[in-house]
């Protein structure tokens, strides 16, 4: 996460920011700081859940690769893209 932050600058949400989010089982997300709400798909929910629990990007990518049966490289780039996308909402 920190590595991605140094590459992408301020658009990456911090762990503290992610931990504030209220996430439902269906992927509905409420940001208590801004009042904004949005939804993530099931794979996004897997990644967000792992990151909120403190997993590193590598752990989140490997876990996503295992659960979805995709190569780790694809999972890794998908996780990075997802976090950058998330940064635009937070």
């Amino acid at each position: 996460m920190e590595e991605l932050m140094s590459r992408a600058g301020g658009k990456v949400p911090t762990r503290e920011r992610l931990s504030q989010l209220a996430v439902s089982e269906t992927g509905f997300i409420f940001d208590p700081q801004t009042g904004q709400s949005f939804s993530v798909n099931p794979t996004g929910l897997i990644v967000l859940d792992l990151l909120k629990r403190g997993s590193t990007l590598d752990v989140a990518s490997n876990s996503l690769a295992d659960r979805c049966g995709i190569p780790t490289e694809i999972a890794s780039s998908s996780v990075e893209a997802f976090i950058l996308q998330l940064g635009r909402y937070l």
Partner: protein
Amino acid sequence: MKATRPKGKSWQNYKVAVTGINARAENPGPGCAVARCIQEHPLFKGSIIGLGYDALDAGLYARHLCNNSYLIPYPSEGEEALLYRLAQIHKSEGLDAIIPCLDSELQNFGRLKSELQLMGISMLIPSRDQFNLRAKNHLSAFCESIDVNAPESKALSNPTFFDTCEKEGWKYPLIVKGIFYDAYIVHSAFEAKSVFAKLVSTWGYPVLVQKLVIGDELNLAAVGDGKGNMLGAVTMRKKALTEKGKAWAGVSIVDDGLTRVAERIIGALSWRGPLEVEVIKGYDGKIYLIEINPRFPSWIYLSHAVGRNLPVAVLKLLSGLTDLELSEPTSGTFFIRHAQELIVTLPEFETVLTEGRLAPQMVQDQIIRSA
């Protein structure tokens, strides 16, 4: 003259008068929401007296909110007319407290505070100095004195400013505001001058112009204890607006930055009473103070919904309680405002127009007689 309110009377049994019970859907007064907060508190056993200015103020007829209702003179008639009318109402009702809910009436109520106190009627309202310091035309100077960001603003008495303002760095769109209420975004000198004339005819001089800040609009309602402490802040983000820019949907949030700004305001003013702090959280992350309203906002029912019933907190403070039993701030509670028709019978309307009051038994009798 001695205070008629027995010492130690519990807030739960108070007879509370509430003003601002007009309820136009696009821009309702806060009074009905204040009354609802108090009526729905499980421990409240007293009654609410609605004080309206116009026979079409909906709260006058809202039986579930106001047990009895009265018309009072418009603020422009001055404090003597108000005192005379309040004394009449007090004789019939035996009021314990008044919660004024409109900016335009607060100065009159402020001048009558001692007289009303002697009659046994308490109010938690700001002093004249506190009221004036936070006024729209003094806001920039106040913000500078407490190191809070505010959009640049100016008090105007001449609309020709709008013809040349762009040369002086005031680029359109701008916000043009009345001294008490109303704010419009204007995109040209023509539009600005038309709004200027409208605001002068409604609210008088000066008219205020403010630079537009782009960001999210956040509002915070709280109560100041008069000693510099903020009690029970509730923060809301507007989710949908009426044409007048008022919230018709919103959600409770927790924003530490805004809370700190509000604490600084209340501390600097030693604010006494309810207030609403309106800010824009700019996309640069900074908080810009837009307005400080010296009363509860019309969305105050949200405070009851999140366990921080601020109108009841005011009653508790007036009764001398210090433990307000407020829940921790929470986020994620939504409100959606909706319009609803109140049915008013001819005898009810007639009684308000001819007698300036609406007492339930009298109306009931008239209905039975006419049946």
